[in-house]
């Protein structure tokens, strides 16, 4: 995942891409662009900053409150930076039945953080999440938006070792 320096105006750098995106939607669908544009901004910056909201409000012509409401409704949007590796462990039914609670405990112990926290060296942010739609390969983790399936304590150790 790219992380652009905070000083860079992420929104402006994405404007040409947003112009192309707009053309793929029917006329009058500007409001629809809120979600995909926010996703792209977060891909580059790692989170959504206030100036991104300002830029997007002006670009799409939607009320600012709409973007603020959207940001707080959907769980994938972040308003502040996270560690270099964003780890999410599913704790819904099937994953719990296949050991995700123990997995989470193992991760907390290994990283020395509780869910919601970031390691002191800024490498890992650990969170829990709900069903990821991959119950057949439980327990499942997400690392920087990619699924890691059929996890176990051993696989977690091996994974953490690879993530620098």
């Amino acid at each position: 995942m790219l992380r652009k320096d905070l000083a860079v105006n992420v929104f402006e750098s994405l404007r040409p891409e947003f112009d192309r995106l707009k053309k793929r939607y029917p006329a009058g669908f500007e409001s629809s662009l809120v979600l995909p544009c926010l996703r792209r901004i977060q891909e580059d910056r790692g989170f959504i900053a206030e100036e991104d909201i300002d830029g997007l409000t002006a670009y799409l012509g939607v009320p600012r409150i709409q973007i603020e409401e959207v940001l707080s409704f959907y769980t994938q949007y972040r308003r502040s930076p996270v560690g270099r590796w964003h780890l999410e462990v599913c704790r819904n039914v099937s994953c719990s039945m296949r050991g995700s609670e123990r997995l989470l405990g193992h991760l907390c112990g290994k990283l020395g953080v509780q869910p919601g926290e970031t390691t002191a060296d800024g490498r890992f942010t650990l969170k829990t999440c709900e069903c990821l739609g991959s119950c057949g390969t439980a327990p499942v983790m997400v690392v920087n938006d990619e699924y890691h399936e059929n996890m176990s304590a051993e696989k977690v150790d091996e994974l953490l070792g690879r993530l620098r």
Partner: protein
Amino acid sequence: MPRIFIDGQPFDARLDQTVMQVADANGIAIPRLCWHPQLSIAGNCRLCVVQVEGRSWVEISCNMPVSEDLRVQTDTELVRAHRKAILQFLTLNHPVDCGICDKAGECMLQDYHVAHNGDASVSHEPKVEATKFFSLSSRITLDNERCVLCTRCVRFTHEVSKSHALGVQDRGDHSVIRPAKGPGASPLEHDAYSDNIIDLCPVGALLSKDFLYRDRVWYLKATPSVCPGCERGCSIDVWHRKPEWALRSLDAKHNTSIVRVTPRDNPAVNGPWVCNKARDLARILERPRAHAPMAKGREVTLEAALAAARALIDKARRPVALISSWGSNEELHAFKTALGERFTCFVKADHVPIEGEVVSDELLIRADKNPNGHTARSLFGSAPMAFTPDTDLVLVWGEGADFAALPRGVPIVFLNAYLAPENGHADVFFPTSVMTERRGHYSNFAGVVSAFERCFSRPGGVVDAQAVFEALGVRIPNEAVTP
């Protein structure tokens, strides 16, 4: 014209109506929190449920279209059970703040709880906590614990005032109403209609900071009146202490204060809304007052002032009158009758838009900041103020005249309600009553006539302008106007 049945009674309906609207039009009470006649349908409170005859379930009535021969029941056992359940849900996390909440006495949740539930809570869980004093703007405070998320306030800012100032943050039972952020002050601060959300709020979540903790509504009287802030003439209620609940206070002001101003629904003029200027009327009407007639700054008796003024008028050959556009229909007619022949009259704009005030918009606010220019101009014309070299008396009625622009050396008779340096400069000065101290009528820009009723007695020493005109002019027998 479909005919529907509510509780067995037939009613004619229009195809564009919902069952709730037909019930409302025919005096059948269906409780609701989120529905409002001027806002889109939200259908989220679930309190307005009714039961269609033949069905074993209930449905909300605010979103139920009418159809020929539709039969609904509003008070079956199932409906009552569901209403009670919804109220249980609503009061699950609602703080028991009634003892300290301004809304007590005019709270829909209180009223419905007593009417449709009445039981203590069945929950053993601690209540969800949230922010209790969130400053939405310099005028409005929000208590998120009391909020029932009916979203009336949110819909108002999107659909009526179009400030798009409010929205819902987070989700589930952590949802909170929040204002838009962004550079500078919240858009709600600049929304000239923001305070309407206080009336809209069915509970004590949105409260006026100005009214906060000032008084209990059951001690207050709502006197119908008209807002003088512009020529729209919105219908308002002026709230003040009921005479039978007068405070025994060292300061008499407590019993003669405007405690708050709210809109009075008037489909012909303003609907259920007013702008914030109406809410702040006390700032205009309760400025320091003039209390005594004067001659060149010296206090005199009313008789002496009238005699002096009469003498000046009798002597003058080219008297000019600057007519107040805040005069009531009655006062304006009285001047016309008593003195209109004697004076060359010009209608004066007592008030002009001040710095920072909205001049006009597409909703209610009009640029003419005077309530009765319409009647004044119909009686006295629209000619711009002009003095001739032979002007030998100026009668100034009301505020807003530029005394520096009056012809030098010409005697001035001045009628004004408020304390002003000019009062002392006039040859004769009369301290006049304000609209809350008498009954009268204003005609708005479209000619709609609205009445304002008396809230308070005139302070001692203050006179009605109408009485002064009648005393100064040729008296014609006419209907006595009850002061």
